[in-house]
C-alpha cells in the first residue's frame, strides 16, 4: 500500500521556535506539496516541489521555507513560529495525477 508519512501527528511549539515538519513518500513520485488546512479556508498551498532540490512558492509561502534533498523526503520549515501558524499541515505527493495525502500534523504554536 502506497504511503505518505508525516513524522508527527501533533506538535506544540513556542512562539519564535524553528519548527521542522517532515514528510516521506514511498511511491517514487516526482511532485510533493505542503498545504495547510484552516476552517472556512480549505486547503491552501504553501510550497511545492517537482524535483529534487527544486521548489516553488504556493499561495501562502510567507513565514515558511522547504527543503528537498532526496526524492522521497520534503520538509517544511517554520523559520520563527508564530501563533497564526497554528493549523493542520498536510503533505501530499503525486506523479501528475491525483494526490496521495499524509495523515496531517496538527501544529499548535503557543
Amino acid at each position, binding site marked *: 500500500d502506497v504511503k505518505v508519512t508525516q513524522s508527527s501527528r501533533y506538535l506544540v511549539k513556542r512562539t519564535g521556535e524553528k519548527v521542522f515538519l517532515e514528510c516521506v513518500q514511498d511511491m517514487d513520485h516526482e511532485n510533493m506539496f505542503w498545504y495547510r488546512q484552516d476552517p472556512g479556508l480549505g486547503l491552501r*498551498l504553501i510550497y511545492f516541489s517537482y524535483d529534487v532540490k527544486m521548489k516553488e512558492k504556493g499561495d501562502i509561502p510567507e513565514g515558511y521555507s522547504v527543503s528537498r534533498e532526496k526524492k522521497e523526503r520534503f520538509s517544511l520549515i517554520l523559520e520563527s513560529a508564530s501563533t497564526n501558524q497554528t493549523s493542520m499541515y498536510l503533505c501530499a505527493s503525486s506523479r*501528475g495525477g491525483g494526490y496521495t495525502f*499524509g495523515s496531517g500534523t496538527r501544529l499548535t504554536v503557543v
Partner: protein
Amino acid sequence: DQQVKQNSPSLSVQEGRISILNCDYTNSMFDYFLWYKKYPAEGPTFLISISSIKDKNEDGRFTVFLNKSAKHLSLHIVPSQPGDSAVYFCAARRYGAGGTSYGKLTFGQGTILTVHP
C-alpha cells in the same frame, strides 16, 4: 482570488436521501476535477474525478457532474449513509506551463456533510 469555490460550508441530509455538493470554478484552463473526502485527524482521500472532456462520471453511490459552460460541478451521493459524514473538498487541476506535468491542484473551501441516521 478564489478560483475554486464551495459556497455551502455545510450540508445536513437524512440517511438514505441524496446528498448534493456543489463547486464552482473560474479558471477555464482547468482540465481535470477531483473530489476528496476528509475525516477529522486524517488526510484527505481521493473519492472520484472527472476529465473536462466528460460531463458525468459514476462510481457506485458517487456521481460527479460537470457543466463546463457554467463552470460548475457537483457530487451526488445516493443513498447517503452516516459513514459519509465528513468534509468534502472539490479540487481542480491545470497542467503547468511549458509542458511540466506537476499538475498542481487548487482546492475549494470544503463542505461539511452530516448524514443523520
